[in-house]
């Protein structure tokens, strides 16, 4: 049997979920027996592959770029896993929602800038007015809450997903775990 194609994606999040994946330590080797990481911040692939079996998506959808990415990922992925609270609830990135992006940009780039205060508009993607969880844009197959989900959670979840064993997520993790 060929290995499953696994992608991990980093949208608007702190990369803590990815750190937690790495925290599986030596258990990663066992995971690597059954999956191939075809796309990830930790591998050198620039474009999302056409056919991915499992995608773990970290982070909320906060910019036009995030939205474009998540739609593309959905189109090319069999099983989409929302990984961590940002992807599932909006979490910390969504804390700007009540006041809107302009206030945040002003505070970060104008009010607190010591030199040449200006809001970056070239190269960086435009922010959406509201940060939203990924399931508000695309269908999500598995929700793995936690901030971040623990390495044990990842291990149990990935093993189950790779082998098709049923997964009792609330027994493993919760919002904020």
């Amino acid at each position, binding site marked *: 049997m060929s290995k499953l194609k696994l992608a991990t994606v980093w949208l608007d999040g702190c990369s803590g979920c990815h750190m937690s994946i790495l925290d599986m330590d030596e258990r990663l080797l066992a995971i690597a027996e059954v999956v191939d990481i075809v796309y990830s911040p930790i591998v050198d692939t620039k474009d999302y592959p056409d056919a991915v079996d499992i995608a773990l998506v970290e982070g909320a959808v906060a910019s036009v770029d995030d939205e474009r990415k998540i739609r593309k990922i959905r189109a090319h992925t069999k099983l989409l896993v929302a990984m961590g609270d940002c992807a599932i609830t909006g*979490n910390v990135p969504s804390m700007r929602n*009540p*006041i809107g992006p302009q206030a945040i940009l002003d505070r970060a780039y104008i009010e607190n800038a010591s030199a040449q205060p200006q809001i970056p508009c070239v190269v960086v993607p435009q922010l959406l007015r509201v940060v939203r969880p990924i399931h508000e844009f695309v269908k999500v197959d598995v929700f793995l809450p936690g901030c971040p989900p623990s390495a044990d959670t990842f291990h149990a979840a990935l093993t189950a997903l790779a082998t098709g064993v049923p997964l009792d997520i609330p027994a493993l993790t919760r919002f904020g775990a």
Partner: protein
Amino acid sequence: MNDAVEVKTLIIDEQEVSARRGQTILEVARENGIQIPTLCSLDGLSSVGACRMCLVEIKGSNKLLPACVATVYEGMEVTTNSERLQKYRRNILELLFAERNHICSVCVSNGHCELQTLGQQHGLTHVRLPYRNPDLHVDASHERFTVDHNRCVLCTRCVRVCAEIEGAHIWDVKGRGIDSIVITDLNQPWGESACTRCGKCVQVCPTGALFDKSKVGADHPKYPDFLPFLNMMREAQ
């Protein structure tokens, strides 16, 4: 079925139980090890039946009753955990999570929050409803405590404990519907209110809405269990 009979027998979740007249379904269920989820209800305070988490089915009636206020009667048949009830409870929890800005990861109550625990117990892995993202404030004017309205579920435990147990009644609810908010005094900052600084409201708050400033991070367990003892001691006096 004489109502004057002091002891009632009834069935809760196919288990025959006995109860004293005037006891609530919730009390009787707990005495018999049957867990009914609650949020606004708290042992030691009056019950308001507001959160609707403890709704139960009564055989022969299509109306659901809140177990915290509904009293038992002879021959009553109660179902506390049907699929339908579980669905409503999950819906209620989703409504709560989407109503205000509950960011568990940065909350002082992360790990010992009743809302979070209920969510996990009911298998809530995500909220399907759109988040409302209301712009709510944090009042840190009090010397010892803070109220963060982003985390409030409007259970009114603080209102009741302050009025019923402390006797100060500085907490109340302002506004209507989705704009309801708990206030201190006549909507004055907590620090300028007639607060007695007893801290009972903080202890009974099920979430991180009310918290003690001296506690940092997630190191803020709460101990609402003092209430029944306090009441018992007072009655003994």
